[in-house]
């Protein structure tokens, strides 16, 4: 598949943006600049970036607790994302959502969900609207291997298939639900094997390879827009860091060993994409490094923006409850 150079470079930029955003989050979180849970996406960047590069701004996504990568991958703003983590008024949700609930309705990011599997029926609903109105947009639900065991996934995939909806079920299989391994919790070898139960195509993709993710998702998007229904894509990937920053350090040895982590770190999605771009003459080493440096700079500015944004005022507590407001009880 011939991929436009601009798309390849955009993918590299977004992957570096996520990586550098997450590194900054880990730094400022451990420095105590904000509290609360935050779940780093480091190691998994190629999955969301490759998948979202196949979407338009008018397409919709929903996501989960590991929530910084999806909005950035879809073109969200790092300054508003960072300000949200800092709990400030200029954050995406004016400080009411925090790390696990980023959303940007101006570019189809319908919101991340801290309840796993819960945002998947919502994505099916966006696709249902396209189906009823005859619109051409598609929707994509990100979920993990852990959430693949939720009833919501079964209900959503069955519903999307019987109604032939333009939705892509995108499983980020990072192989651990917090500390519990895939093998302990999933009855099939691959989440994508479950697609046959819903009469839809299932694709198992190397989730460290952004280009492979882009190609697979593009095929699924094409099917969806052509009215051919849903697809289940599994990006096989790995979480390089711990589950969450706010929950205390979990002993790695307790559930995964250092050798396994080291093995997966050799397959860093940024290295893989950069090597491909350089070897194919699409970008030089210097160009790749410049993109990295530019995103470092943008994340620094975003962090300053977040630090300088005020906290909400007490009266803001009561804003945003209702579209058609009612008196307080």
């Amino acid at each position, binding site marked *: 598949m011939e991929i436009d150079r601009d798309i390849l470079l955009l993918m590299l930029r977004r992957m570096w943006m996520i990586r550098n955003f997450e590194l900054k989050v880990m730094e400022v979180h451990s420095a105590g600049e904000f509290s609360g849970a935050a779940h780093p996406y480091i190691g998994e960047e190629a999955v969301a970036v490759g998948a979202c590069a196949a979407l338009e701004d008018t397409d919709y996504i929903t996501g989960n607790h590991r929530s910084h990568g999806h909005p950035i991958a879809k073109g969200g703003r790092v300054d508003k994302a960072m300000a949200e983590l800092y709990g400030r008024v200029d954050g995406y949700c004016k400080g009411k959502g925090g790390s696990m609930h980023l959303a940007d*309705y101006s570019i189809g990011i319908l919101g991340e969900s801290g309840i796993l599997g819960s945002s998947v029926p*919502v994505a099916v*609903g966006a696709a249902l*609207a396209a189906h009823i109105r005859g619109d051409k947009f598609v929707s994509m639900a990100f979920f993990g291997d852990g959430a693949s065991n939720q009833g919501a996934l079964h209900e959503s995939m*069955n519903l999307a298939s019987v109604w032939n909806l333009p939705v892509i079920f995108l499983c980020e299989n990072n192989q651990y639900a917090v500390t519990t391994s895939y093998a302990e919790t999933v009855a099939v070898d691959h989440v994508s094997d479950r697609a046959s139960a819903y009469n839809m195509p299932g694709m198992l993709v190397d989730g460290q390879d952004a280009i492979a993710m882009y190609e697979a998702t593009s095929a699924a998007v094409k099917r969806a827009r052509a009215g051919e229904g849903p697809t289940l894509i599994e990006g096989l990937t790995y979480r390089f860091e711990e589950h969450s920053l706010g929950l205390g350090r979990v002993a790695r040895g307790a559930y995964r060993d250092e050798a396994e982590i080291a093995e997966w770190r050799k397959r860093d999605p940024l290295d893989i994409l950069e090597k491909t771009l350089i070897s194919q003459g699409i970008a030089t080493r210097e160009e790749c490094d410049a993109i990295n440096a530019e995103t470092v700079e943008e994340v620094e500015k975003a962090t300053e923006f977040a630090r300088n944004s005020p906290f909400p005022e007490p009266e803001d507590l009561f804003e945003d409850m*209702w579209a058609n407001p009612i008196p307080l009880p």
Partner: protein
Amino acid sequence: MAQTVFLEAINQAIQEEMRRDESVFILGEDIRRAIYGATADLLSEFGEKRVLDTPLSENGFFGAAIGASLVGMRPVVETLTSFMWVAMDQLISQAAKMRYMFGGQATLPVVFRASMFYGAGSAAHHSDRSYPMFMNMPGIKIIVPSNPADMKGLLKTAIRDDDPTIVFEDGTLFGMRGEVPDNSELPGEELLVPFGEARTVREGTDCTIVAIGGAVNHSIAAADQLAAEGISVEVIDPRTLVPLDKKSILESVEKTGRLVIADPAHKVCSAASEIASIVSEEGFWSLQAPIQKVASEQVHIPYTPSLEKHVYPDAPKIIAAVRRTLES
């Protein structure tokens, strides 16, 4: 003015709103064949894309309705109260919380119509009157109509409202006939009942009964019997519990000095509890007697009629409660 059956009123409201606005669609189990009656003839008029029969997947299709509402549709979900338990994740974690959690970005004009089939041998799994649980959760508007006209007018308002709404449709009223004005008789030629405005069903001076859903008719019967003894009872129907018209309730209690609350829900943390709490806090000096709650006994709904009939508020229980307020 036409005599209309409660179920017909539901049907009229949906039909009128689907004609008026193409973004309104309805989904639920067995609605194309209208097994409960409320969705009769919708399929033939509006077609398969706007009248959707769903699999038995409440969590899935409630979520689908929520997602569709986020991108400009106005879904109406038909379900039973008892099936909402299966979809609580979507109702609470998504419908109720999304707008606030996303800083006002999400707008969810979605209506859940939940039938409450209590009182006719449906037993524990099909008899829930669960609105108090949802009153406890911010983010959902709650309607409990007590007659055909309010049913129609409130449902139409709910479909046009931009927030998630649950309409608790009292199954004991499905066959009730009542006057529903023809559209041609109305200003604007349609029946719209605003949220947050209680209806004074009957005026009186000795005691106020605030009655919810099916308890309104029992309260009217109680008031009739008490009137024969010279006791004058005022009956107030809040019609919507979120928002709640506490002003009308407090004004009535200020006039009568006594309050009975008749609520088909379980008595602990019921709508009656909340109303009693409001009047205790804000209307205490109007009271001449302790507030009386007449709500369902704190047991599950037994199947056998010999037991079930003792669970809910009825006219004799309401009369006894009014008498207790007058003894003080």
